[in-house]
C-alpha cells in the first residue's frame, strides 16, 4: 500500500502534468538546473512535513478555521527552509528570490493537505507528501534540463557544448535564446503533457 502511495504521484498521477497544481513556481525557477533542484528539494521537504504535521493534528483542528491553521504550519516550515537556504546556499537563494516564499501558496501543498492528509494517518501522509514533492521535482528538473542545455549549452553550470563550436569562435553552433525566455517553460510543459497523454490514453480530454 505504501508502495502504491509512493509510485503513483511520480508519473501516473503527477501533480503538475495531471492534476495541474503548483504551476506558478514550477515554471519560473527552471532557467538553470541548480535552482530547479534546490526548489524541488525545498518543496519536497515542506510537503512531507506539512502533510505529516497536519495529519497528526487532523482530529483536533476545527473544520471552520482549518485553512488558517494549514497556512500557519506551511508558512512556519517555509520560513525554516528560507533561513537555511540563506545561511548555506546564499547564491541560489538570491536566484530563487520570492519563489521560496511562494511555496506557501503553492497549490500542491494545500491540495495534498486537503485531499490526503486530512483523511489519513501521519505515516502515509508523510510518504504521500514526499512522493508528490518528487513528482513535482521530476517535471521541474526535466524542464530545467532542456532549458539549460539548449539555452545556455551547459548543465549545472558546467559548459557542455565545446567553446570552439560557437559561431563567434568560427564554429557552427548558436545557443537557442528562446529557451532562456519564460514562455518556453510553458511550451515545454505543454509538450510533456502531450507526450504523457499520448502514452496514457485515459487522460485525454474531450
Amino acid at each position, binding site marked *: 500500500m505504501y508502495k502504491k502511495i509512493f509510485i503513483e504521484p511520480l508519473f501516473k498521477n503527477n501533480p503538475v502534468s495531471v492534476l*495541474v*497544481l*503548483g*504551476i*506558478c*513556481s*514550477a*515554471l*519560473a525557477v527552471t532557467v538553470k538546473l541548480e535552482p530547479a533542484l534546490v526548489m524541488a528539494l525545498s518543496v519536497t521537504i515542506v510537503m512531507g512535513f506539512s502533510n505529516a504535521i497536519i495529519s497528526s493534528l487532523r482530529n483536533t483542528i476545527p473544520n471552520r478555521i482549518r*485553512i*488558517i491553521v494549514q*497556512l*500557519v504550519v506551511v*508558512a*512556519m516550515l*517555509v*520560513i525554516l527552509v*528560507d*533561513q537555511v537556504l540563506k545561511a548555506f546556499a546564499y547564491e541560489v537563494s538570491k536566484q530563487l*528570490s*520570492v519563489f521560496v*516564499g*511562494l511555496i*506557501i*501558496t*503553492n*497549490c500542491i501543498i*494545500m491540495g495534498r493537505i486537503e485531499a490526503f492528509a486530512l483523511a489519513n494517518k501521519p505515516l502515509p501522509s508523510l510518504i504521500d507528501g514526499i512522493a508528490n514533492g518528487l513528482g513535482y521535482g521530476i517535471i521541474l528538473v526535466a524542464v530545467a534540463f532542456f532549458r539549460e542545455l539548449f539555452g545556455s549549452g551547459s548543465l549545472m553550470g558546467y559548459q557542455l557544448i565545446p567553446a570552439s563550436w560557437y559561431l563567434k569562435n568560427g564554429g557552427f553552433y548558436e545557443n537557442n535564446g528562446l529557451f532562456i*525566455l*519564460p*514562455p*518556453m*517553460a*510553458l*511550451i515545454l*510543459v*505543454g*509538450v510533456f*503533457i*502531450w*507526450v504523457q*497523454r*499520448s502514452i496514457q*490514453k485515459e487522460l*485525454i*480530454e*474531450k
Partner: protein
Amino acid sequence: MQELVNIFVKSIFIDNMVFAYFLGMCSYLAVSKNVKTAVGLGLAVIFVLGVTLPANYLLFKYVLSDGALAWLNPEYANIDLSFLSFIIFIAVIASMVQLVEMVVEKFSPGLYSSLGIFLPLIAVNCAILGGSLFMQERAYETLAQATVFGLGSGLGWFLAIVALAAIREKLSYSNVPAPLRGLGITFIVVGLMGIAFMSFMGIKL
C-alpha cells in the same frame, strides 16, 4: 507623479504577473474557460491586490523591516523582524480576503453572488502573495508607489485572464490533436501569448 505612472505601466505590461513571473497560474488556468467568470475573478484580484499591498507595505515599513520599531522606542532600533514577513503577509491576506468577503456580502449582494466562490480562492492565489513579496524585494519607497504597483499588477492579471478566456472560447471550435486537447494546448497558447508580451520588454520608462 511621473514615477507613479511609470510603475503603473511597467507592472501592467513589462512585469506582467502572468507572463513574466507565472504568478497565479493555478487559478489562471482553471478559471479561464469562459470570459464571464474570468472577468469576475480578474476584478476580484485587482481589488484584493489594491487593498493588501498598502496594508502589507505599512506593516513592513513600521513593524517588520530592520530597525522599523524605532518609532515605538529608540531601544528597539536594532530589532529585525523581517524573517517573519511570510507569515504576517499571508495572515494579512487571508484576513483581508475574509473581510472583503463580508463587506461585499453586506453592501452589494449582487456583486457577491457573481464573485461567489472566487473570493475565498484568492487567499491562496500566488499573485497576491507574490505582489507583497515583490513589493518587499524591490523596496518601493512610498505608500502611493506600493498601491499603484498593486493596482497595476492586478490590472495586468485581469487583462491576461480575459485574453486567455477569449482565446479558449474560440479554441473549443478548432481541431486539436487528441492528446493535446484541453490542458496541453492551453499551456502552449499561454506560452505564445507570453512571447507576444515579451515585445514590451525593451521599453525603458
